[in-house]
């Protein structure tokens, strides 16, 4: 039988302000029936552009060469998407190929019911009455695992959770039974536990409906979980194409090897962590022998943080009765899914959000009901690294000026020019050339910006560094180098750190101790070995089992464990 889609020598160039930019360079790929082809690569590798070509969804600024031959489900008709007219493209979309987008909350129109939106797709291609279309919508919602579809079909998107919204998006892609679904980072916006469910659904599409899937992702764990075949893209070219098991077991291209090496795995940093702990304990012991005891940098006792509600409504309790402490020189990893309160805790320690109950002592200063004026001198001892390096720099200041800001504010230098010598030292410490100080933030790559952000956070040699998801906006190979740098700097400067992340593997690399948050409550705390190897709390167990590992064989085994965890009663707090 003919393949569903056959891409031959595809090249795409974009018109930009800086002249022509080539995004895809001579790519040839085929997708067979009922097969999941994963296209992996880092941002800018051309994977999304390649996939969008299959649906003819490129903007007007793009020029396409080569051929993308799409065959319909019955195998009776084929068409070259590149040469189709707009009208012909509309006929192909939905019936032969459809798309699942990354962000389910923006892919659905908030003012229409989900049933209406699914029916719209049906009625665009087939002559059906409203009632018939709705009946089909209910049927497809049932198939993608939405409970009570007869009722839910009349719900609006905001009445669904993130994972259910993604199910609805998948349902509307599936409703005309296309031979191919293009899924562009379908689980990136979702929490790991929800991600596992959506991956399970996609697997069912392939097995029960025989739908071929082009899966675009940067997450090697997702690839290992779902893909039959993998194409690795780098700088617009396919550098390696192999079936999933072969690729993970025996990668050929140097780039693939590098990519796989950069993926953090649980247990990888255990040796360093143990060494560091031993070193620190020795230090504490020697200081104790001199009669000095270390005061903890942060002590939280029954901490409560509530966001005020609207007039007459109850406030939202983001953090509920959380107790932990951070010793000098210790790295505490804070893990949790979105809405678990991890970022709120970090912001409260930094004085950006007010703690409302219990007690939070930062550097021996009570943060509940604090006054900004009294806290200000202490800010010199707290560094902060933000999630998005692009947004955390003032676009109109040079890197040197931005790094000099803390020095000027706290009176260590009279002007940014005066601080330049210290700034140069800091840039060297984070492995950036001094000359980069004269650049503007947009002239640096993501990883370089996050290095500069580290330099700014460390400018005053703080006792405490709060890092809020510092690597989640970075590509995996860049992430690996930034994490390495973070560990080096921590060893060199000896600051205590609160490392906030949603990624257990990343936290495990760096943290001495790990605290797991769930719905604002601290469910488990301990060393990496305790929490990750012998999790006690059911939520931690589920979180661990949901985390896909970059190894198809191991991942298949983990799936059964997760299925057991989910089916066991009482263990499913969601």
């Amino acid at each position: 039988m003919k393949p569903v889609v056959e891409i031959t020598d595809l090249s795409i160039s974009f018109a930009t302000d800086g002249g022509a930019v080539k995004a895809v360079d001579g790519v040839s790929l085929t997708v067979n029936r009922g097969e999941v082809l994963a296209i992996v690569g880092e941002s800018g590798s051309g994977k999304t552009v390649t996939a969008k070509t299959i649906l003819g969804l490129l903007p007007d600024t793009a020029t396409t060469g080569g051929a993308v031959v799409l065959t319909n489900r019955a195998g009776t008709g084929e068409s070259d998407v590149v040469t189709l007219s707009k009208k012909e493209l509309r006929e192909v979309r939905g019936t032969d190929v459809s798309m699942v987008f990354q962000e389910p909350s923006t892919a659905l129109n908030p003012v229409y019911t989900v049933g209406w939106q699914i029916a719209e797709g049906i009625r665009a291609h087939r002559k059906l009455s409203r009632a018939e279309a709705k009946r089909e919508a209910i049927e497809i919602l049932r198939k993608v695992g939405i409970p009570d579809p007869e009722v839910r079909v009349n719900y609006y998107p905001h009445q669904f959770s993130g994972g259910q919204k993604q199910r609805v998006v998948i349902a509307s892609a599936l409703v005309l039974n296309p031979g191919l679904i293009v899924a562009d980072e379908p689980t990136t916006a979702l929490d790991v536990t929800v991600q596992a469910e959506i991956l399970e659904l996609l697997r069912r599409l392939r097995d029960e409906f025989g739908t071929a899937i082009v899966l675009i992702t940067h997450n090697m764990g997702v690839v290992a979980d779902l893909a039959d075949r993998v194409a690795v893209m780098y700088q617009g070219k396919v550098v390696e194409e192999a079936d999933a098991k072969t690729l993970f077991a025996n990668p050929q291209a140097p780039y693939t090897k590098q990519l796989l090496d950069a993926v953090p795995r649980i247990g990888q940093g255990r040796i360093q962590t143990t060494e560091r702990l031993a070193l620190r304990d020795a230090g504490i012991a020697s200081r104790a022998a001199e009669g000095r005891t270390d005061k903890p940098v942060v002590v939280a006792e029954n901490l409560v943080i509530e966001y005020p509600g609207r007039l007459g409504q109850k406030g939202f309790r983001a953090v509920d009765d959380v107790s932990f402490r951070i010793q000098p020189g210790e790295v505490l990893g804070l893990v949790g899914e979105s809405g678990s309160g991890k970022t709120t805790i970090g912001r409260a320690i930094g004085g950006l959000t007010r703690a409302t109950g219990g007690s939070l002592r930062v550097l021996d200063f009570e943060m509940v009901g604090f006054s900004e004026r009294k806290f200000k001198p202490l800010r010199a001892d707290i560094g902060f690294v933000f999630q998005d390096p692009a947004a955390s720099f003032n676009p109109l200041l040079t890197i040197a000026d931005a790094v000099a800001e803390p020095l000027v504010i706290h009176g260590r230098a009279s002007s940014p020019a005066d601080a330049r010598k210290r700034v140069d030292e800091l840039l060297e410490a984070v492995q950036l050339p001094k000359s980069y100080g004269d650049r503007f933030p947009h002239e640096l790559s993501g990883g370089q910006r996050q290095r500069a952000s580290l330099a700014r956070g460390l400018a005053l040699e703080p006792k405490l560094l709060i890092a809020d998801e510092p690597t989640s906006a970075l590509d995996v190979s860049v992430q690996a180098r930034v994490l390495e740098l973070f560990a080096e700097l921590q060893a060199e400067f000896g600051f205590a750190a609160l490392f906030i992340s949603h990624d257990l593997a990343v936290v495990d690399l760096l943290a001495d101790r790990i605290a797991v948050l769930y719905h604002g409550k601290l469910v488990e705390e301990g060393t990496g070995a305790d929490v990750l190897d012998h999790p006690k709390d059911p939520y931690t167990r589920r979180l661990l089992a949901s985390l896909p590992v970059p190894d198809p064989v191991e991942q298949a085994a983990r799936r059964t464990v997760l299925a057991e965890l989910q089916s066991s009663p009482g263990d499913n707090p969601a």
Partner: protein
Amino acid sequence: MSADTAPLSSLPPVKGNFLGRLPVLKQLRQSVGLQRGMLVTGLVITALFLLVALFAPVIAPYGFAQLRDDSGAFGAQQPPSAQHIMGTTVGGYDVFSRVIWGAQTAVMVIVFAVVFSIIAGILLGLVSGYLGGWLDRVLVVIGDAIYAFPSLLLAIVLSIVISGGQSNLWGGIIAAALSITVVFIPQYYRVIRAETIRIKAEPYVESAKMLGASTSRIMFRHVLRNATRTLPIIFTLNSSEAILTLAGLGFLGFGIEPTAAAEWGYDLNKALSDVTSGIWWTALFPGLAIVLSVLGITLVGESLNDLADPRLRGRKRVKVKSGAVSETSVDRTLPSDEDILEENA
């Protein structure tokens, strides 16, 4: 992997050339096709308008209030001739000279009106947006209240209050400028306030807060410059509106006396009765001057507006397989440790 071997020289250039970074020139370079045509037309008309205003004393054959020369009085409502290429008005002034001098008045009123309203609007917007609270609420209500009045009515009331009927050159210009200012302040205020509220939540402002920067430092170093990016567009659009308001005031008789300065709106008013009696030149030329100057400035403003938005900006199509593959975000652009040591040495 050659991730560490890219030489420093392969890094992107730090700065473009200076001329190419100037606000209007940068957009001119970016534009193509119809958008470029619009921008160039607008720029040419606007430049002409400014040049005429600047060199009015040289270009205009007579003064704006001149009624006679060596050969005697001009005479009223004379048709275009060699002496008076655009004829004379009912009051006996030379139309061509008054059109030329009128450009000067218009430019001065624009400059004063826009400078006053920008300064006041930016400060109010910044303070109100950043600090919030009751001050913000009061200012928003006042701003909305001003919107509720027809702008020309406000301008009339103000011009009566300020100039009180007497009108020398500067008094008239300042009065006109201030009456336009009152109408414009809420516009700048709103834009800056909205931008400030957006920027207030940006991580780089939070980062400055984390570092312990004072409120005024955050407001002026981090928020102000980022909030004023859209101003050139409002500035040009408001300039054309200022010309119209000034002409409107003059037309209704609240402008500048003909002996103090030339003003297109006033001349149009005086030409009202001429039109019905077939005297076309007294109304046509001041009217054309208003239309052209407004058109020129609006074209510049609208094209800048389109070009500032990458989604509206037109680009030339590129050929198949053209262009170079850009570096992806893998840290290839990052020099190796040796390079850094060498560079830093």
